[in-house]
């Protein structure tokens, strides 16, 4: 339950919206770039839930997510004067969010905390890299994953995601979590379109294989 004082503050902040088109995001971004703090506060209000979801899907740790979300908006505020509007504001914000989350994940402490046998298909672009997978496909029988109840599948999935390489978690979070197109993901992460495609394919295949192993 939101304390009364907090509700009052949030209501007052929403009431601060200027009468001259303050709800239009492009206008808010323009004003925020000019140094209008209230416009930026409004952008925070509009985007904080989405940033929270994206970062959480990558970090899967509540307290770390709270920290990183705050860092994201502080970083965005400091750099918004350099935002040229070549992409959507949300894409730009997602770039900051995924970068901060990736930085967090890549710290040494995170690597030590991860399971000793990380789930990781080789980052290998050679044509033979999928040979094993292809052989498995020719075997008869449906995937054990198909027989799993939704709840059981979810439980296995949650554990398997933690084993994914950080770069793969990012594309999954943006694609399956936020529904972004490959092009927007490439823009947000500043990677090639082909890299988005291959990382997503590997991430999903690895998750599938991990869940199937747990389900057997």
């Amino acid at each position: 339950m939101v304390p009364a004082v907090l509700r009052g503050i949030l209501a007052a902040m929403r009431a601060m919206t200027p009468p001259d088109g303050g709800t239009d995001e492009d206008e808010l971004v323009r004003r925020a770039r000019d140094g209008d703090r209230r416009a930026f506060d409004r952008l925070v209000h509009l985007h904080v839930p989405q940033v929270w979801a994206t970062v959480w899907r990558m970090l899967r740790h509540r307290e770390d997510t709270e920290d990183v979300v705050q860092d994201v908006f502080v970083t965005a505020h400091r750099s918004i004067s350099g935002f040229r509007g070549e992409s959507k504001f949300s894409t730009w914000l997602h770039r900051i969010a995924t970068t901060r989350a990736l930085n967090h994940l890549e710290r040494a402490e995170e690597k030590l905390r991860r399971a000793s046998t990380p789930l990781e298909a080789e980052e290998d672009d050679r044509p033979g890299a999928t040979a094993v997978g292809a052989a498995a496909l020719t075997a008869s029988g449906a995937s054990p994953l198909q027989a799993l109840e939704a709840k059981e599948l979810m439980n296995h999935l949650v554990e398997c995601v933690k084993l994914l390489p950080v770069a793969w978690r990012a594309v999954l979070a943006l694609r399956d979590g936020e529904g972004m197109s490959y092009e927007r993901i490439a823009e947000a992460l500043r990677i090639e379109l082909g890299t988005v495609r291959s990382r997503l394919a590997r991430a999903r295949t690895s998750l599938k294989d991990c869940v199937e192993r747990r389900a057997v």
Partner: protein
Amino acid sequence: MSEFANGHPRDRLSPYLDDELQVDERAAVDRHLALCPACRDELEALHRIAEAFADEPVPAMPDDLEVRVLHRLDLASIAPMRRRGFAVPVSIAATIAAVGLVSVLAWKQGRPILPPHEPELGSTVAPAPAQAPAPEGHDAPPPARAMDKLAESKKNEVALDTPAAPQPAIEPRELAKQQTIGERQDDADAAQERSRALGYVAGGAGDAKDTGAPVLGRDARAKPRAAAKADTGVVGGVAGALVAPACASGMLEASDNGRWSVADLPRALDELQTVLRAVGGRLEAFEPGTAGFATVVIPRERYGEWIRAAKIQGVAGLAETFPAGDGGCVRQRITIVRPNS
């Protein structure tokens, strides 16, 4: 002969699922799927994985996260404010943090903290040291739990300011340049409100066991580490303007000195400051040491409030009796020790 290497388009099933294949690629996969049950099963499995990931519930965002974000922006507002042409910060929280930095330096040298220049409320002028940015990660002192108790037992005379007035309908760039002192004060008041409000919101457990103070979640847990690293000093400043006129009619010395056992000194001093501000008092001096000594000054008419709030915070040895004599203020000394010392 298969049109795919190794006979199956395994690397294309994922983009096929997302409708991200080129037209001819998609057609080729369609042809293959019509003939390959294994690939159809694989596609179905990938589909279930993608759906499950999308359906995975995301924990609810903390109710106070947005306010905490804005609070962080308040503290970081010194640098962005320079873009508007202001050479000094207008946020009261930022002013306190900046002046506190000066106090840190004096404290580290072992000197008692003297009250800094006390700006009048509403002024946009801050002391010269305010040019320094707030330490990274440092949050404004959280309001003490005593605030809740004071509100219950007696009406809080430190009125919260009203939210900002609606902005005039002018071009935003001009608005930023022409922001009046009143509007800047509104921004500062909004920042202070957020700072206060955070004290009403409980976060995780842990530190509250030591000091009985409210915990603000991750920020509060992070804050003691940052404060310890920075050897956060104390600030007398802002409320001094409220106390000074009262003290002009004389200073009484309290006969009973309090004793406060704290595990986290910087945090305890922040909480002490918050309580003092709430009752119109100020921290006159702090002498660090194995047993630190804090000297506080309270307006006489609010001495009872101070005693009740201090007791709630855990200060022992205070009697609810006014010192004898005439005087508008009471000076009291509190010995601060570590637990089990």
